[in-house]
């Protein structure tokens, strides 16, 4: 965009995707991967999964967010206004997850099967659930960007997170973790369909968010970033994993390499989806056009 076109034409948000904003994209992807894996690991009772996801959320999501801040040493201030700010709430949810997650991991490792473990699993699960959906609320609160101002976003991010979590737990299972691979595959199949459905509904509903929302969708489908959607999200993120998943349903046994390919493709989809959503967020012009 040329300088004189800024806010005269539809203007893309750049703060959370261009230059250092790329860190926000990486943080959001880590949020989905880490949070989703934790939720799925709780279901499959995979201690490795829980531990890896807990670390991923702290080091990757927390790290990328921390690195993005202009004044990182003031990070603690982000908890000061939870009454109105979704970002402040997210910071609190993340802190709760780090704390309760640590207790839960400790109880699961040293005192498995106790009431304490069950209690901390519930609390940590609830806090990571809030961490995962919070990203959607942070974005849908911004009514200046109609493409994001959708109630579908928290749901979509949750569904994506669970799908990513299932893909990662499958990998952990393939590498010797105590995971029911058949159940993980079945879950992946289900969430691939749910995800495809939610993405379609999200994009369709965004076209009803006024001309700016419609423009964002058009930009995503036909614009400069269309390749990311069609190739990254649709082809790699949904089509190939569905083909692999269906073939694994009909064949009695699928090779580990094929499953790994499916997992990698799903990861590409996860990165592409967040990138597309951040990249195609437009503001309405301030002047008559």
């Amino acid at each position, binding site marked *: 965009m040329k300088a*004189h076109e800024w806010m005269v034409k539809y203007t893309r948000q750049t703060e959370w995707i261009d230059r250092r904003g790329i860190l926000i994209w990486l943080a959001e992807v880590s949020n989905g991967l880490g949070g989703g894996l934790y939720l799925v690991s709780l279901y499959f009772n995979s201690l490795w999964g829980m531990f890896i996801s807990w670390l991923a959320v702290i080091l990757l999501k927390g790290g990328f967010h921390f690195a993005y801040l*202009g004044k990182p040493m*003031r990070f603690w201030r982000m908890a*000061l206004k939870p009454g109105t*700010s979704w*970002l402040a709430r997210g910071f609190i949810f993340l802190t709760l997850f780090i704390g309760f997650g640590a207790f839960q991991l400790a109880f699961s490792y040293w005192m498995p099967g106790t009431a304490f473990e069950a209690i901390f699993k519930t609390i940590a699960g609830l806090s990571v659930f809030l961490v995962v959906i919070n990203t959607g609320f942070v974005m849908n609160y911004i*009514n*200046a960007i109609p493409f994001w101002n959708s109630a579908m976003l928290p749901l979509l991010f949750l569904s994506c997170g669970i799908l990513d979590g299932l893909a990662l737990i499958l990998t952990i299972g393939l590498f010797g973790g105590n995971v029911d691979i058949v159940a993980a595959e079945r879950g992946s199949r289900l969430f691939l369909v749910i995800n495809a459905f939610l993405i379609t509904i999200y994009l369709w509903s965004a076209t009803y968010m006024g001309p700016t929302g419609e423009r964002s969708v058009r930009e995503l489908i036909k614009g400069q970033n269309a390749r990311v959607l069609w190739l990254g999200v649709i082809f790699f993120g949904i089509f190939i994993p569905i083909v692999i998943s269906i073939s694994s349903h009909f064949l009695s046994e699928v090779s580990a390499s094929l499953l790994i390919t499916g997992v990698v493709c799903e990861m590409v989809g996860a990165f592409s989806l967040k990138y597309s959503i951040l990249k195609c967020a437009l503001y309405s012009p301030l002047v008559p*056009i």
Partner: protein
Amino acid sequence: MTRWGMVIDLRRCIGCYSCTIGCKQEHFLPPGVFWTRLLISEIGIYPRVVSHVYPVLCNHCSEAICVKACPSGATVQREDGIVNIDYDKCVGCRYCVLACPYQQRTYYSDASKGYFPGQGLTELEVFGRELSSFQSGTVVKCNFCEEKIDEGIGKGLKPGVDREATPACVNNCPTKARHFGKLDDPDSEVSILIRQRKGFQLHPEFGTNPSVYYID
């Protein structure tokens, strides 16, 4: 309580950028940071072309979404409606930049960047950096020249009437396209202009109730 506001007469604005430059000088704004700008659009096809010039600045919305979005409490709204940033509290998350429908906030990233690249900061720039309270890594925006308003009121002056207590962009406008005053006073110049010439706000659909009005 007073609510300060501005009325911009689009018929009078000639697009000379005096407001932009005046603001930059008043606040020693670094390169790339503008607290007031001109947006110029052209509609139609030659020979039937209409040009619109819109001076824009922070709207100091009464329902400011940036105040609600700010997680650290750095962005606050004074009782007189002026939305302000406490640079000592800002964490530089830029959520407010995203939330502003008018895109009137700027992330100030590099304090060492001067107007003459490769030649260091000029004496005036160094003086300006010492005088201003900006911090790199924080978000900056128009403050309605609150320091002038506060000082002027302290001296018994009337913002919008007395130059000493009036925002720099209003003072610098050679065509008197900008008017400043109390929005809640029905007899103030700004209220009369809004009433008589059907003043409008930018993007009222966002429910922010801006304090900057335009008349055409």
